[in-house]
């Protein structure tokens, strides 16, 4: 882990982010589809994107959860070992396990280093305009999105409602598919317009607020953020050496006061604060 931390500290993050965008979206062949789509992507990257090589972990989770209720009903109607296995098989062990493995090792680093939409937000925030500082205390909202749109609603209605509203899906898949495929255009209706409004609102919010989507909406970020407290890769602050200059907050993509809680759930482990700390009070544990 120390070797990884050292490597990350000496690597330009935007290069890794750019490589991740290409690495997650390089499958140019329409047929056969990418065999790598059996593996969840480590960032929020729509699997309906024409170039996507991997599966979206949030889309895949909803797919499993959406089948859980019908499987449970069938199991209750006809109790048997086979039906019990069928119910168990509809729990998203595999997808959440992959997220858990990454989270256990590096916490939310995938958000900071690999997520294509996180990279886009970093770039968009550099656009000129008024900048607002929103407290990460509002970060609980992403857990509401996770619980309702990824958990409860897909469980009850069997449809992936986060995907239906997801601005990443609109950007990476919806808009390209509508442009490229005339057969899809006639399917477009009000909900697509709503998705475009959500996308526009998200982009606008990201001009104003650092990584607003990651901090307040993203359900994958919510899952990863649960692991920040426990992960092998952690930050420490030497409170005696810290001079509260706030340089860490200036460079932090999630607007954290690092010295208050270096392993806050908002931290995306970009390690920018470690690089800029004038007294080297912030370090990788």
């Amino acid at each position: 882990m120390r070797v990884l931390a050292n490597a990350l500290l000496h690597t330009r993050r935007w290069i890794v982010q750019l490589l991740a965008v290409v690495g997650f979206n390089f499958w140019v062949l329409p047929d056969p589809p990418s065999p790598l789509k059996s593996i969840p992507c480590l960032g929020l990257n729509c699997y309906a994107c024409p170039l996507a090589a991997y599966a979206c972990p949030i889309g895949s989770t909803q797919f499993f959860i959406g089948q859980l209720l019908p499987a449970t009903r069938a199991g209750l109607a006809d109790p048997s070992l086979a039906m019990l296995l069928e119910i168990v098989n509809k729990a998203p062990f595999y997808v959440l396990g992959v997220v858990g493995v990454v989270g256990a090792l590096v916490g939310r680093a995938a958000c900071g280093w690999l997520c294509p939409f996180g990279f886009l937000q970093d770039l968009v925030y550099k656009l000129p305009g008024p900048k607002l500082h929103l407290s990460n205390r509002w970060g609980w909202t992403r857990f509401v999105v996770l619980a309702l749109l990824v958990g409860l609603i897909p469980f009850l209605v069997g449809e992936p409602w986060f995907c239906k509203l997801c601005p990443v899906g609109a950007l990476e898949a919806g808009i390209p598919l509508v442009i490229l495929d005339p057969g899809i255009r006639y399917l477009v209706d009000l909900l697509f317009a709503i998705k475009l409004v959500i996308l526009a609102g998200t982009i606008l919010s990201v001009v104003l607020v650092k990584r607003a989507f990651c901090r307040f909406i993203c359900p994958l970020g919510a899952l990863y953020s649960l692991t920040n407290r426990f992960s092998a890769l952690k930050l420490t602050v030497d409170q005696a050496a810290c001079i509260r200059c706030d340089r860490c907050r200036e460079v932090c993509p999630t607007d954290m006061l690092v010295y208050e809680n270096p392993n806050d759930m908002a931290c995306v482990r970009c390690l920018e604060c470690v690089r800029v700390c004038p007294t080297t009070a912030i370090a990788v544990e």
Partner: protein
Amino acid sequence: MHWDSLTLHVLLFQEGVMLKSYQALLLLSLAAVLGGMLLAQPFQVWINATLLCLSCIGIG
């Protein structure tokens, strides 16, 4: 099971075998991945991800 600053130590299998929190989470997650693989969940993920998911335009 007890909290020690930010580290959750989990007593596992026998007295004296202690895991740090990330090791416990890692083991649990690896077990979930392996269990899912035994249930052929990667194939289900692949099928779902290779279907043209029309949720990206708000339907499907």
